[in-house]
């Protein structure tokens, strides 16, 4: 079975001295080939609040070819304080537009663009110009739609959000995602020159490694969110299932119903609504409300900067891995609980 790694994209294969100097410390980690693939990749990032700004920073520093910042919302005092790319005098401007200058300065070698349209209004083919798409602050329906039309074209899809102390990341890298892993080489004893004159049979040579090709498959977001919890197998796995998965379902429903996320300004009203939605969602799934105790509510309001940093870091790195086709991707959710400090990777969907 010939496992095809996509050929490195990009107009040329030469790495300049400037790039070599600037990317030195990361080339030493993930290798030159991975860096070249990054350098040929175009990414769409939707949503430029706290989490979006973190992902933007991470991708720009990594050295992708192009990053499009898409956001239709305007800068408010609240949104400006949530991230570090928007200047203090930008209230009233478009959020993506206001973030552009600082984003570009992070790395002049990346083409940073702005799109001020609402993502819902974009036609299908808009997404096809990208190698990866990262959706933040989007409705469930939009995410499902984009995921469906992208995954079939080998466009990597990522979703992520931060709600107070909690955050998540989802990825769909398609039915056949190819990547490489670097493993230590097992050296057979021989008389030939080795990394040492005392070569032993079958010794693992710490100085030499080899690239192993692998393939992995992902399910759609739709499948991941529509897991059937009524069958016996699912029920028995509940104990090991992070509650954050259900929290996400509740928050997505809140977003769909209210058109926004829970706000500190309307804490009382939103808390009540949250609890109600929790009851509805879990009941529909055939599950008990106890899965999400009431205490969850108070920790889901507004994006917390350090949580954006953590989730944005993991999400950013997953994008880098997927675009560079190097190292095993997390499959297919990452949940972060900022109160406990725990970060869990788990798979939801058909196996």
């Amino acid at each position, binding site marked *: 079975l010939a496992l095809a790694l996509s050929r490195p994209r990009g107009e040329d*294969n*030469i*790495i300049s001295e400037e790039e*070599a*100097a*600037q*990317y*030195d*410390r*990361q080339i*030493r*980690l993930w290798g*030159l080939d991975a860096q070249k693939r990054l350098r040929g990749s175009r990414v769409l990032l939707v949503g430029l609040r*706290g989490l979006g700004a*973190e992902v933007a*920073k*991470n991708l720009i*520093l*990594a*050295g992708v070819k192009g990053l499009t910042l898409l956001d239709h919302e305007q800068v408010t005092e609240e949104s400006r*304080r*949530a*991230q*570090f*790319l928007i*200047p*203090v005098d930008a209230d009233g401007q478009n959020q993506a537009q206001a973030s552009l200058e*600082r984003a570009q*300065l992070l*790395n002049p070698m990346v083409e940073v663009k702005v799109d001020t349209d609402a993502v819902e209004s974009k036609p299908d083919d808009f997404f096809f110009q990208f190698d990866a798409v990262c959706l933040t602050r989007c409705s469930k329906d939009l995410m499902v739609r984009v995921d469906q039309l992208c995954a079939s074209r080998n466009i990597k899809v990522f979703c992520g959000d931060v709600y107070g102390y909690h955050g998540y990341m989802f990825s769909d890298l398609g039915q056949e995602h190819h990547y490489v892993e670097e493993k230590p080489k097992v050296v057979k004893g021989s008389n030939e*020159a*080795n*990394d*040492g*004159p*005392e070569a032993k049979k079958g010794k693992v040579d*710490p*100085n030499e490694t080899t690239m192993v090709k692998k393939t992995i498959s992902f399910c759609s977001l739709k499948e991941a969110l529509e897991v059937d919890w009524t069958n016996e197998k699912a029920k028995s796995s509940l104990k090991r299932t992070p509650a954050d998965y259900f929290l996400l379902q509740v928050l997505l429903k809140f977003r769909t119903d209210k058109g926004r996320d829970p706000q500190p300004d309307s804490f009382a009203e939103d808390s009540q609504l949250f609890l109600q939605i929790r009851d509805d969602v879990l009941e529909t799934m055939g599950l008990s409300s106890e899965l999400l105790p009431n205490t969850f509510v108070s920790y889901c309001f507004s994006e*917390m*900067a*350090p949580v954006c*940093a*953590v989730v*944005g*870091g*993991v999400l*950013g*790195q997953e994008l*880098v891995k997927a675009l560079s086709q190097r190292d*095993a991707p*997390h499959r297919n959710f990452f949940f972060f609980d*900022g*109160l*406990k*400090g*725990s*970060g*869990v*990777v*788990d798979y939801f969907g058909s196996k």
Partner: protein
Amino acid sequence: MALADSLFSCRVLVVGAGGIGCELLKNLVLTGFKNIEVIDLDTIDVSNLNRQFLFQKKHVGKSKAQVAKESVLRFCPSANITAYHDSIMNPDYNMEFFRNFQLVMNALDNRAARNHVNRMCLAADIPLIESGTAGYLGQVTVIKKGQTECYECQPKPTQKTFPGCTIRNTPSEPIHCIVWAKYLFNQLFGEEDADREVSPDTADPEAAWNPADAAARATASDQDGDIKRVSTKEWARSTGYDPVKLFNKLFKDDIMYLLTMDKLWKKRKAPLPLDWTEIQQIESSQEESCGMGLKDQQVLGVQGYTQLFRRSVETLRSQLIEKGEGAELVWDKDDPSAMDFVSAAANLRMNVFSMNMKSRFDVKSMAGNIIPAIATTNAVIAGLIVLEALKILNSDFDQCRTIFLNKQPNPRKKLLVPCALDRPNSNCYVCASKPEVTVKLNVHKTIVQALQDKILKEKFGMVAPDVQIEDGKGTILISSEEGETEANNNKFLSGFGIRNGSRLQADDFLQDYTLLVNVIHSEELEKDVEFEVVGDAPDKAPAPSAPEEGKNIANGNKDSAQPSTSSKAAAEDDDVLIIDSDEEPSSSTMEASPESSNRKRKHHDADDAASKRKRLDQQPSDDDEDIIALD
């Protein structure tokens, strides 16, 4: 909300404005911290720009702390930030300074500074959040006097060093050749070091067919007479640093000498000498660099490295001449000729000893102790630091954790693994109520300077020790005041009546730290070993508590466990608990530092004399410890 108020009013100190520091400053101001002080002695380098996002290309050469402050103020002008371009080990930053803060957060990359800040925070009783990253891995923990382990409660594996005869006679790995090449650089162009010879070691115990023979050889090489001892530098000068003569001495004559020590080659593959003239005659089969890869990543052939050797010697020779009489060059991985030289010399030696040669890129990693680094790992760790900070400020101390960031999830699906904090070690030689240690050494062979530099400073992390002998008279052996006890430096300890069972009281007033040192006299220390710490020796210590995965950070990631090849840098190494990502500082860093650079330079000079320690086993067992990972 009470928390919001305390965020507004509290004062925090960030030590370091590099990879973690930049991310941390950003998180702090976005979270609402108002009063922040940041300190860093370093200046910005182009290789920082892939992750230290507060800096741009135009800032290269400037102070990290200063530029970080300016960048942060741009998106949060109301923040109150003070920046210090200075070393945290400067005595200006005393207990009183530390007491200004409610919280200290480290964003460091070397152990010496971590030890020091640990002690200052213990002394001032201020909570400290410690952290580290390397590659994809990272870790955060909280240190609070009396409640948790301090940074030094668990012994950490020390920097890997290699025995002299391995470097000089029987290298078996590329790293041995690289260390040799760095020693060679210093012997030829830099500060000569009697402890770092490059010529064949005639006193190698392994070489002798009988023990008496080795002793005889050792004596012979010390005496004037038949074998005249000429320093490598003198010899090189006498030939005008002729690259051909140098080449033939190092890679032909010296190798042929080694071959006469035939016992060494009974079980090892014998080295194969090179000959300059022969190499010149071989057709160059080198491929031209086609630009596909990094030029640096090409592995050249023997001819290629020979040319590189010649070119770099010529360039370095010119640099020496330019600098004038008595000039010395300082090793700097970012100086192209210095790096060329080490790359060439190391590879030629690898070739002599039948090892696969390495690209300049790889040699630089090893020679410069470069630890790969990316933005995302630092971003995650800095986020976790602030979350711990919030718990501390909210007095939710019981919620604080040590958190490990792994590359892949563990069997329990965890990528981020929180673990309960440990209670202090009652035998800790730093935070115990009356810390005490026992040190084995030879009182007739150990000089006072070695006690100060190698034992008290390097091993026990003191910065400016004062030492009294508990002899009923309170005889002062070492004074931290410059010049006061200089006369004692080269005298042996026995000359002061120090013998088996003697006790020394060592104080570092800045760190508010007193350590009682019990002396055991021994004449049976191993070769190259100057002293041993009894009972507490790292290779006997239990593995520190670790997440069940353990393999990456807790036991030292073998991939990044590059033994330090530095001669001047502080004790950077791969930490068991906290990762050190300290690179060799480039000489430009030291020049750019301000007035207090004398202090800092002193510190660096002191680190120069690395204690010679037997190579330690770097593999504590995976599974022994009880892991308290929380769900």
